[in-house]
């Protein structure tokens, strides 16, 4: 399935061949509440039949507003979420999301894609 550009063009979303959702935030994107809402709408659109694990590629994201982070506290079509980043900045951003808001499904931060995919697959 081809990636679908979410509203605003700051992210893309696809279902991988392995059966997980892959949400990619563009490097340097400053994620606002409407971007998060659009991304979540895309996730829910793809998960009408069943909830799927989701890999969120957030490496080199510029910033995430507080309101945008709060959106991900709302239950969505994802059954578990792996946040994938590289830099210390990604780690800080991810952990602020994890620490300040209570995620609606199991959520963890990874810096290794294989580790992240293993963890997502472990649930299925």
């Amino acid at each position, binding site marked *: 399935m081809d990636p679908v550009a979410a509203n605003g063009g700051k992210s893309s979303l696809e279902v991988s061949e392995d059966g997980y959702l892959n949400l990619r935030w563009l490097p*340097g994107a400053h994620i606002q509440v409407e971007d998060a809402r659009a991304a979540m709408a895309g996730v829910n659109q793809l998960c009408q039949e069943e909830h799927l694990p989701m890999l969120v590629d957030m490496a*080199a994201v510029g*910033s995430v507003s*507080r309101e945008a982070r709060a959106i991900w506290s709302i239950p969505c079509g994802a059954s578990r979420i792996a946040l994938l980043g*590289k*830099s*210390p*900045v*990604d*780690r*800080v*951003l991810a952990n*602020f999301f994890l620490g*300040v808001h209570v995620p609606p499904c199991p959520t963890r931060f990874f810096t290794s894609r294989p580790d992240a995919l293993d963890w997502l697959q472990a649930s299925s």
Partner: protein
Amino acid sequence: MSPEKGSEDLRLQHLVDGIVRLAAGDLEARVEPSERGDEIDAVIIGVNLLAEELDHIYSDLEQRVADRTAMLRRTQDELERMAKMDALTGLANRTLLNERIQEATAASVESGLAPAALVLDLDSFKAINDTLGHGAGDAVLVEVATRLRAAVRATDTVARLGGDEFAVVITEATDEEILDIAHRVSAHLQDSVQVGTETVWARASIGVCIGTPGYPAEALMRDADIAMYQAKIQGRNTIQLFHPDMLDAVQERSRITSELRSAINGDEMALLYQPVVELASGRVTGLEALVRWHHPSRGTIMPDSFIHIAEESGLILELGRWVLHEGVAQLMRWNTTAPDLAGFHLHINLSAAELLRSDLLADIQDTLKSHGVAPQRLVLEITETVLMSRGALEQQVLGSLRDLGVGLQIDDFGTGYSSISYLRTLPADTVKVDHSLIQDMCSNPQQQEFVAAILQLISAAGLTAIVEGIETPEQAAQLQAMGCLYGQGYYFGYPLVADKVLDHIRTPVPPR
């Protein structure tokens, strides 16, 4: 130092500056990260995010505090409103009324228009409560409150002072407007009030006090109250404007009350006795005890000048007790001195309040017994107004008095709103026809017929008539010709001191 190292230092310097601003309370301070995304940028972003969270928590806390404060303020306002409101009618209570007067008095310094106060007291509310119950009484009070609100302007304050007493504070009005409002209030109370199936009236006596700049706030209500009191005296359902003379009258009344109290307890009260005679023979059949007050500095004061004060102050009970004891004791003294003249009655006046005196029966019984006087020799004179408006309790007392053997007499017949039918149902033996009915009887044949008819009516009801106020032999003769058996008046004798009574009885006025 490499350029890279130098830029790192610069970011750290920005970070320090940002933290200093945050520490100073500027929670909107942020530090711009670089594109590198390294540890220093991670720290910068972490600090930004922490500042954002802190800012959010502070804002949220401030909002909550503001919300709670507003809620507390609303609750406090509501409590204050309730504390200043009469629960039954929703009108202001005395506390709020006083506040409004104080405010209006303060405001009048600039405007020159001092506030005015109306004090209203319903004229017959007790009767409504007594006969229809407190539920009906409350309904009437609520209706009165509605009418008062409708009668005044939006800027005026209507209050319930308690019981059946209301007040209105009028601000920023001319004398003419104030009196207009008073008349409008009175007019709104003229229509009857429907309570269930009953129709009642809730008219009021209204006192008005128009303040002047500098008029003390507390004096305004006092003086409106004094004026209301005057309105009551002057016939109820009237409006009376306060005049400073009234204050003098109140102070005078207060002084008299105090003096009267000590007079009753001391030896300033005295009884005089006016004969009641049999018209045909001139024989004295009774003596009416009449009270006099021998005031040390003002001389002898007639009852007309102090009985109403005694009634208002409750001293009437003390006075009545004294009259009973002294009158019966004197009757015993006459018995001892002249056992051969022991046939006449002693007439004593009984007021409405005394009829409800809890120890009245026992007091009469004990007094008669201790002086060895037969109950049949005592006649209690009760005004027809009291008898007409008697309640269940009064009815019971009257019955018990009759059972005791004491005679009951309707006093002042013809001065109130007499009902012909009540003559037959009252527990009385004799009727005293008021002197006003015979005043021009001799010169007015029509009045003569009228008196004759009344005498026949009394006779037909099985009662015995005594006509009072007989001043001439012609009146005595005419009344006797009409079939009247007994009379009283100056013609037969002025009120006498006790020492002169026996001589007078022995030398009666010859019959015509």
